[in-house]
């Protein structure tokens, strides 16, 4: 940290000390007041004084029973909402019995084959009282249909459902990679969900537009911000092209950012994100409703900043990242488990993650006042600079025709890979310190953790048997008729949501309905990067 060339993680030059002259004129206009345009200081006037952020640990594994047990475990310990992790077969449209699924069932999340599974997943969890986040994308319309049927079974009205469906397919092509169908029909399915939810699910966010996964794949904070806003523009353009009024859906668009280790840069990024989205909503989309430009976001801590070496250090890393999310004004937060470099978190680790949030919330005093870093010469200068740099990338993506076109050209993917390689080289040569890895590495420290999560191998067999029994017990004719309606809607460009709800109600499986979409839309295979 010596010499003149000191930079942030994203490469923004940093002065030794900041003073009034380092902040451009007109700051008051760029800030506004909290809860008012341009929302730099926060989406709500009282922020955490009015209501703390939602503590939402991402969880799910095994069959619906195991995941349901983990949900109860978290809620009993003071978690305030749920966030469902699905296994890869569910994310990619395969039933648990599919040959491609067999070694992956229940591993990275819960296996869901039928609407009955969704009913079991939320057993004893009143859906009008607990908000639920679903990390699901290619199969998001099917999962939403199953969730609506589960709510219906509980006697909960659609208008009372609160939560978020990730449903951001563009970033699957960018980074997360659970795409199934080609980009164009994929974007259409995402928009079908948003269109369906608009007006009908007033408390539910039908999409969470995210730069998080690009960041985890290796890009920097500035690129993350630009990719997120470029995707938001692409969805809004597509929805407006369908004839929807921007103000009808924009207030329910939600966002998802990573919060990593460079504390002030992360806070500056989150503040810049709000200001930039307000500007885009007003100038580009002519928003008349101020809440159309009010960016609300979920913050996930960064798993890639955590290390296998000296794993307890990860608790400290996560605490700093949680603090960054709070100082940046997050609406909901997930804190990584300290054992996440090895496995999905143990009960001990996930409890510590929740306790981290609770200690920041209840002991640190940070939530006492809104945007406590507002007015800091450094943070304001950095907020302005990140806005400028992200704006330049956004303009470049615009020149390529937009996010979908940029992805097709493969450019953002190349930027991410190049950045990931640079970071790894810096770790290898020591210029990017990682305590316990390339500095203060203690050879005697054991890497073994006391308690690691273990997947139960019999879960897959039980899940396959359960689905087979349910398929055998359904009204086959009604199911075939309803599934045919989905195929017709998909083929004719009609919104697929109403027919999907009917189909899952008759017992159609996630794999069967995904096969319908595969037949109509085809499958996407990623071209080789080199």
């Amino acid at each position, binding site marked *: 940290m010596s010499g003149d060339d000191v930079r942030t993680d994203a490469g923004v030059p940093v002065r030794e000390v900041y003073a009034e002259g380092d902040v451009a004129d007109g700051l008051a206009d760029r800030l506004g007041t909290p809860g008012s345009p341009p929302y730099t200081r926060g989406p709500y006037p009282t922020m955490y004084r009015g209501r703390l952020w939602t503590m939402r640990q991402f969880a799910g594994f095994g069959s619906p029973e195991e995941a349901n047990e983990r949900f109860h475990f978290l809620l009993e310990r003071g978690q305030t909402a749920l966030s469902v992790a699905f296994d890869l077969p569910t994310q990619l449209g395969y039933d648990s019995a599919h040959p491609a699924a067999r*070694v992956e069932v229940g591993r990275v999340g819960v296996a869901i084959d039928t609407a009955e599974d969704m009913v079991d997943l939320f057993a004893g969890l009143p859906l009008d009282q607990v908000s639920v986040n679903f990390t699901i994308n290619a199969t998001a319309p099917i999962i939403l249909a199953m969730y609506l049927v589960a709510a219906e079974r509980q006697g909960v009205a659609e208008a009372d459902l609160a939560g978020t469906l990730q449903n951001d397919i563009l970033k699957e092509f960018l980074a997360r*990679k659970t795409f199934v169908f080609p980009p164009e029909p994929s974007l259409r399915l995402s928009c079908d969900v948003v269109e369906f939810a608009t007006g009908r699910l007033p408390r539910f966010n039908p999409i969470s537009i995210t730069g998080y996964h690009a960041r985890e794949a290796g890009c920097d904070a500035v690129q993350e911000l630009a990719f997120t806003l470029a995707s938001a523009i692409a969805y809004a353009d597509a929805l407006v092209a369908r004839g929807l009024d921007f103000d009808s859906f924009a207030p329910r668009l939600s966002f998802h950012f990573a919060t990593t280790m460079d504390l002030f840069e992360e806070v500056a990024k989150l503040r810049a994100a709000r200001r930039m989205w307000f500007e885009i909503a007003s100038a580009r989309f002519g928003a008349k409703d101020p809440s159309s430009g009010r960016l609300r976001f979920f913050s996930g801590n960064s798993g890639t900043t955590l290390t*296998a070496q000296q794993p307890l250090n990860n608790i400290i890393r996560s605490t700093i990242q949680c603090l960054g999310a709070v100082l940046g004004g997050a609406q909901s937060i997930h804190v990584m488990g300290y054992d996440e*470099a090895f496995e999905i978190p143990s009960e001990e680790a996930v409890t510590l993650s929740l306790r981290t949030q609770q200690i920041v919330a209840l002991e640190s005093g940070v939530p006492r006042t809104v945007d406590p870093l507002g007015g800091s010469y450094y943070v304001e200068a950095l907020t302005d600079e990140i806005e400028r740099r992200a704006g330049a990338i956004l303009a470049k993506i615009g020149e390529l025709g937009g996010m979908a076109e940029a992805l097709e050209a493969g450019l953002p993917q190349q930027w991410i890979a190049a950045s990931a*390689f640079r970071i790894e080289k810096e770790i290898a040569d020591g210029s990017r310190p990682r305590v316990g890895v390339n500095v203060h590495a203690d050879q005697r420290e054991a*890497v*073994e953790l006391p308690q690691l999560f273990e997947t139960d191998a019999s879960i897959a067999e039980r899940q396959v048997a359960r689905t087979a029994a349910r398929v055998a017990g359904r009204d086959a004719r009604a199911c075939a008729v309803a599934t045919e309606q989905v195929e017709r809607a998909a083929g004719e460009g009609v919104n697929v949501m109403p027919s999907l709800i009917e189909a899952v109600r008759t017992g159609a499986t996630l794999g069967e309905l995904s096969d319908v979409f595969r037949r109509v839309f085809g499958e996407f295979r990623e071209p080789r990067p080199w």
Partner: protein
Amino acid sequence: MSAPRVLLAKPGLDGHDRGIKVIAMALRDAGAEVIYLGLRRSIDEIVHAAVQEDVDVIGMSTLSGAHLPLSTELVEALRGEDVSIPVVVGGTIPASDISALLERGVAAVFPVGTSMPEVVDAVLALAARERIAP
């Protein structure tokens, strides 16, 4: 001697390709010829490409926890084809699984926490050994 040839691929369903792409770039920087097949490749595709491209080492990466069945299938499929190309495996692999992987015929395991230079050195050493004693 011509450049060592390395085939990299991700079997299974997981999409975490940051690690394998970084390794591809690092191996290339170190002078190897790298063929990266990409995501969600079947075992058959990997075996076929390895033979077709006449590679010295096959590297697979998986972060979903399915490393034991997937690497076993790959090693057995190669044996079934009478192909003796060494297989290395990277990803979120708990220390307790490393010996099981080695017993099943995997040549080297790179669990989380392995540095990029360690992976590159090990892969290049394996490739060199293949060329001396094929």
